[in-house]
């Protein structure tokens, strides 16, 4: 151990200060851009909002894929259900957008429960195939104007903007704040969830389902619950998406979208929220930066994925073991033995 305990504490608090600064700087970005008088400012903010939206979706997928280890490649289905639930309530019944949030979550969660119930026991690749089927079925249903609620291939048009405390969200700057505040709240709540009895159970299931069941974890119920929570959150992301775009159509909820979310989680660091955030920036942001090299974009993207799977399958920023703060008397008796191993 080169680092004494004291300097370890110091370096931790330095990291905390730096990350607080980073978050502060990020939130001040709209003001900075406006002050700089940059012409592309709305474009940058819009791009960052998209990054945030995909971060939200990927964080919700992370509960299913990253924590519980279930290969789920149909997350766009639940995103779609949320978006269409919001669109319908708003267009037909005139509900304000934010009031539709819980309904979107409930609808997406309910669909997840229904479709997952018969297949939740499937493992790995088998579950993957089923989830691809789910997203395809949902897309086909949307295209065929199911129950007359989806407007067919053209989708639904004219969805309202959200209103927060009397302030109508319409500018790129407003959406930037709305989305990133939601990302922040999500990360805090999911951090708590992850470090709880429920979150631990998901990690046990991911590591060894048989052993988890053998130690008293109701694996089926926990997997199902993870699926429902992830889906409900994707449904809420759908609400934001619908009101941001004002127009939704089946093209926004393809298998390809599901693959992008899947990639973000795996590339960033399965089971690690900050890793997932990094993944969202890379997967959504980098292609925009390299727009000038349009032709090479997808090639570079594919090559990066292949290289990752070979050299760093755990993702760019994988999770570290949970650090518990032991209660006394154990805290003094057994100070953390951070052995390098």
């Amino acid at each position, binding site marked *: 151990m080169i680092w004494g305990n004291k300097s370890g504490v110091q370096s931790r608090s330095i990291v905390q200060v730096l990350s607080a600064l980073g978050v502060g700087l990020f939130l001040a970005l709209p003001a900075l851009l406006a002050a700089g008088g940059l012409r592309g400012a709305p474009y940058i903010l819009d791009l960052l909002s998209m990054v945030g939206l995909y971060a939200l979706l990927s964080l919700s997928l992370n509960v299913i894929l990253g924590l519980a280890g279930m290969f789920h490649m149909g997350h766009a289905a639940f995103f779609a259900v949320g978006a269409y639930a919001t669109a319908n309530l708003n267009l037909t019944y005139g509900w304000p957008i934010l009031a539709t949030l819980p309904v979107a979550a409930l609808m997406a969660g309910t669909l997840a429960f229904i479709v997952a119930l018969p297949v939740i026991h499937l493992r790995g690749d088998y579950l993957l195939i089923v989830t691809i089927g789910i997203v395809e079925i949902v897309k086909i249903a949307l295209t065929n104007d199911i129950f007359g609620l989806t407007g067919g291939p053209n989708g639904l048009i004219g969805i309202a903007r959200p209103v927060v405390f009397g302030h109508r969200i319409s500018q790129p700057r407003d959406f930037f704040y709305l989305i990133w505040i939601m990302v922040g709240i999500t990360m805090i*709540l999911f951090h*708590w*969830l992850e470090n*709880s*009895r*429920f*979150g*631990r*159970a998901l*990690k*046990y299931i991911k*590591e*060894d389902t*048989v*052993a*988890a*069941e*053998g*130690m*008293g*974890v*109701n*694996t089926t119920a926990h997997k199902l*619950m993870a699926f429902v*929570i992830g889906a409900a959150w994707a449904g809420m992301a759908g609400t934001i998406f619908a009101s941001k775009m004002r127009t939704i159509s089946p093209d926004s909820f393809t298998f390809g979208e599901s693959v992008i979310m899947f990639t973000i989680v795996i590339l960033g660091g399965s089971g690690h929220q900050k890793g997932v955030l990094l993944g969202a920036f890379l997967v959504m942001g980098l292609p925009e930066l390299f727009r000038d090299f349009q032709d090479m974009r997808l090639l570079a993207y594919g090559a990066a994925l292949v290289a990752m799977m070979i050299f760093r399958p755990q993702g760019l920023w994988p999770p570290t*073991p*949970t*650090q*518990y703060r*032991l*209660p006394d008397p*154990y805290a003094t*008796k*057994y100070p*953390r*033995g*951070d*052995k390098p*191993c």
Partner: protein
Amino acid sequence: MLILSLAGVTKTFGGLVAVAGVSLGVERGQIVGLIGPNGAGKTTVFNIITGAVKPDDGHIFFSGRNLTGLRPHRIVALGIARTFQTIRLFPRLTVLDNVLSGCHCRLNSGVMASLLRLPSQRLEERLVLQRAMSELEFVGLAEVWSSPAGSLAYGDQRRLEIARALATEPKLLILDEPAGGMNEQETANLMGLVARIRDRDITVMLIEHDMGFVMRVCHRVLVMENGSLIAQGTPREVRSDPRVIEAYLGQGED
């Protein structure tokens, strides 16, 4: 008083009869050994008791309750915990996290309480850390609580599996070859540990190939061969049973 009884339990895998109509009883408070040659069906019996394998026929009773057909996590909640023949820890999680998995079934916090970090959930988390640490102290692994389980020495991993099982607060603990791969010193320590577990009023059932271990630790010994129970009794009785000697102990004695 019988804590566990099996009545006519049968299990076949394809054409192979792994367990053929086994009936047995385990007295509360005893340490019972289950021995027999490889392939005799011992682990299958354990898997049936813990719910990992469903029997084709027969019933399992635990403290008067019929366990037949219950899923493993329900059986754990009723008070039967196990270790695995090949170590099945969660190797990338910490030692403490592994023990916390055993505590899971005695906790109540739900998803909503966790998502919102309610006070009741926080209190429960604090208590569970104490509980897990006390089990780690019991098996002597408290100092390495923050290490990844996979980084422990083999014998320590076996003891961690026992701590994890004890964390479920079992009335019956089932150990599948607990001394497997241990050196003499570790085996001697394990004998002491098993005795201390019994002193906590936990009935112990174990499969073990180390005959010295079985003869010294167990109150009763059950002997299986080809899926059937061929003898049972005290270690002394079993040792002198001609069928047992023929089936098992006679091999490689000299």
